[in-house]
């Protein structure tokens, strides 16, 4: 790379809409762009979804009635185009076709929802309909299709899209940057998984309940998931997101020991026993998370979040609920989440959940422990149902 290219890259500003599957891949993009010589300060993400964001930057840009998380992307685009103190040069909005899921190799596929993958095409149209807003603001809209589940294909996909936009870009450095992206993402995930494990160890040690959230990654966005889990946490129940559940083999083999021994599954990540059409990465993970929640004794409650007009979640409502409830674990779902946080009703529901958690958790933990091997890797000494609480 020439000095001139290096200098140009250091000044380049990239804006990424923090929406949809960027919620579990943002570390990949950070690692990737930094490896290409962009300053971390110059890789900006839009803020969390909010009504104000949509009103100020996204209104009138929608092209079709759609699920709430996709609708919101217009606001993220608008904020990056019109709402930056320092203008961005590139609006980078990856069309994430498939995801690097921890279930890869055990499911049929690892695809993103069709709306997630196509959202950039759809949202872009709203900024082109009357005039080319990108050209007018001298912003390059770069929306590469990326198959994150097939790492070998990614360098070319990103090189083709960014060539001519990132000065002096070469395919080999793109490949190195992709590796860096995966490594950054893996390190980030590992860190969060380790934290989840600490929570679980604490729960196991103290015989305390925790709550598993079964939702799509973007329900972590306060504007999409409305921080329902944070309200529960405030009541004293630690929260686990299925996406960051620890994946150490020793722990997983313990969780699924009986299923494996009876030949019901081939591997702890196998979900064929509950969800044979395992094509969609996020759905697969939710189903797997439900299985985990059903087995881990200290997860005494699972909450399901689903957005307004989500088409992907619909077929999995019953199986997820059945998986969780059949095990005696508490299950609550919040569906059709949109822009309004019905604060009053959420508060009442959170209080209800909290009441049930307090009343039923000891019994649930005991009952679930009876189905588990006493030699739990979360504890140094064996656990059993008859241990005093």
């Amino acid at each position, binding site marked *: 790379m020439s000095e001139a290219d290096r200098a140009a890259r250091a000044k380049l500003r990239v804006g990424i809409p923090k929406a949809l599957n960027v919620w579990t891949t943002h570390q990949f993009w950070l690692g990737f762009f930094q490896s290409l010589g962009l300053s971390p300060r110059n890789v900006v993400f839009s803020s969390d979804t909010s009504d104000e964001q949509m009103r100020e930057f996204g209104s009138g840009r929608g092209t*079709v009635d759609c699920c709430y998380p996709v609708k919101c992307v217009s606001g993220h685009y608008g904020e990056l185009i019109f709402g930056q103190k320092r203008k961005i040069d590139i609006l980078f909005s990856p069309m994430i076709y498939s995801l690097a899921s921890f279930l890869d190799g055990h499911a*049929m596929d690892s695809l993103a929802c*069709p709306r997630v993958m196509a959202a950039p095409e759809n949202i872009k*149209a709203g900024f082109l309909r009357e005039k080319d807003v990108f050209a007018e603001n001298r912003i390059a809209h770069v929306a590469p299709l990326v198959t994150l589940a097939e790492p070998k294909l990614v360098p070319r996909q990103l090189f083709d899209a960014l060539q001519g936009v990132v000065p002096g870009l070469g395919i080999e450095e793109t490949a190195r940057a992709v590796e860096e992206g995966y490594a950054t993402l893996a390190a980030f995930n590992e860190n969060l998984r380790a934290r989840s494990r600490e929570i679980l160890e604490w729960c196991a040690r103290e015989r305390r309940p925790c709550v598993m959230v079964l939702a799509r990654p973007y329900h972590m966005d306060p504007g999409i998931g409305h921080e329902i889990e944070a309200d529960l946490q405030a009541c004293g129940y630690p929260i686990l997101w299925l996406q960051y559940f620890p994946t150490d083999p020793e722990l997983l083999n313990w969780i699924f020991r009986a299923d494996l021994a009876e030949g019901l599954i081939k591997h702890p990540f196998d979900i064929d026993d509950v969800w044979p059409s395992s094509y969609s990465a996020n759905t697969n993970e939710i189903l797997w998370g439900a299985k985990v929640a059903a087995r881990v004794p200290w997860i005494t409650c699972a909450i399901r979040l689903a957005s307004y007009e989500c088409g992907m979640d619909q077929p999995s409502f019953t199986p997820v609920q059945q998986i969780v409830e*059949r095990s005696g674990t508490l299950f609550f779902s919040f569906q059709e989440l949109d822009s309004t946080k019905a604060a009053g009703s959420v508060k009442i529901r959170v209080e209800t959940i909290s009441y049930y958690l307090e009343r039923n958790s000891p019994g649930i933990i005991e009952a679930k422990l009876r*189905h588990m091997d006493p030699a739990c890797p979360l504890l140094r000494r064996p656990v059993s149902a008859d241990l005093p609480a």
Partner: protein
Amino acid sequence: MNISAKHHFRAYTPAPITREQIDRAEILFGGLHWRAERVVEAVFENMGYRARALPAATRDDLMTGRELADIGQCCPTSFTTGNLANFLRAEAERIGPAAVADRYVYVTAGSCGACRFGQYHQSYELALRNMGLEAFRLFLIDQKKPDQGAAEGGGLDINMPLTIGAVWAILCTDVLQGLEYRTRPYEVQAGQTDAVVGDCVELLHEAFRKRPYRGKKWGTLAWHMSTGYFINVLREVFRRFDVIEVDRLRVKPIVKITGEFYLQTVEGDPNYNIHRWLESEGAEVYPAAIAVWLDYLIRCEVQKLEDKVGVEKGARAKLAALRGAQRLFRWSFDRMRAALGDIPFEMPDQYELRRLAAPYFHHRLSGGEGDMLVGKALWTHKKKKAHMICELSPYACMPNTMSIGAMAGVTGKYPDLLYAPIEIKGDAEVHALSRCQMILTEAKKRAIREFVEVMERTGLTPEEAKPLIDAHPRMNRATYRIPQTGIAAGMAANTLLQLAGARGTRKAA
């Protein structure tokens, strides 16, 4: 310590089925148009099974589907789930649930990816559970695998002869449907086309029922590609159409049907009988051939391989083989089309559709019809294949909403493209049809304007054209081909151009 996982929830899995059991049972299937379904029944029969297409889905089925499965389904899921459920429910009342599980099995395409099409079985399963029919057997066919082998128990073998037979049945009925739709709007004697089509479907049914056995694998494939067996039957179909007298000087707008696979394919309540409704409103319908969808599925696989060339060993060779297979597939369709005088509409080139859609919709975006919706709309418009595009968009469909959104960019660039996206809920007919009617009114005006322009261009009026046609009686037959010139879309305008071409009075464009 006795640890067991038996108490946990498990998904439904069909009980194994033996040959003896399947001989007692009837295979149920559905989701295509009636011509294809009737001939696919014969394909099953030819393979030694008894099969029956489910009755066409109705609004009652929609209600049952909504009631039995989770809320928020796309409407094709509700229709197909309710369709199966209502059939089984009625049978269970008649012969009891145990006999239903014994006498019927259901086979459906599935396992195809990201949208709910890959998860239909979930709704079926839920419906079966809710009806107390868990013992009923439901099998999924992976539409990408022509030779899947036997289902557990060995009774149902999804093998090459069965799959290729079904594909050929679809191709034959596709071209028949194409000829039918190019004929009926112009028939002089009302009802004649339908009667002939009915006969022809039975003719095809018989031919497929008696299809010779040519081995289990490549032998059967080679035979289907090379044989004149089906071509001869189609020639007979063509001969039967010859009795139909037509008046092609009726000025009619052509409406191209696109949209989600199920909605564009079936003819009935699920799409408000839109094909017949459009014809009754004075349009000629350009139906959506199933072959185009199959061609698209091949393209999807080609595209995946294209991305792997240079990255994965052997990808180039696989790509070449698949492209060859796609050419053979298209050649087979064209051969059948030729047997019907090249009158049915041609299959658009998939790579041209991809090129046209590229600025608006990435070709790898999958689910539903992917970039084809945008591609077909532009192909139809630019090549003057139709006056208007009617896109059947299912309520709560995921991929379809995305393509419609992208169409905002297309209509912005091509404001004269007449595009009617009709949201189909299944029970909001008046609203949908009145929306369609508004755009159809404009399409009619365009068809008239185009006809007038062609009159000026050819110097021919209908009054002058009529005796010219009568002087060549073949031109009044359904089997006479009026080519689409690319100058005008409508049949009447192209008929004038044909006459003028023959007389040498056609002016240059």
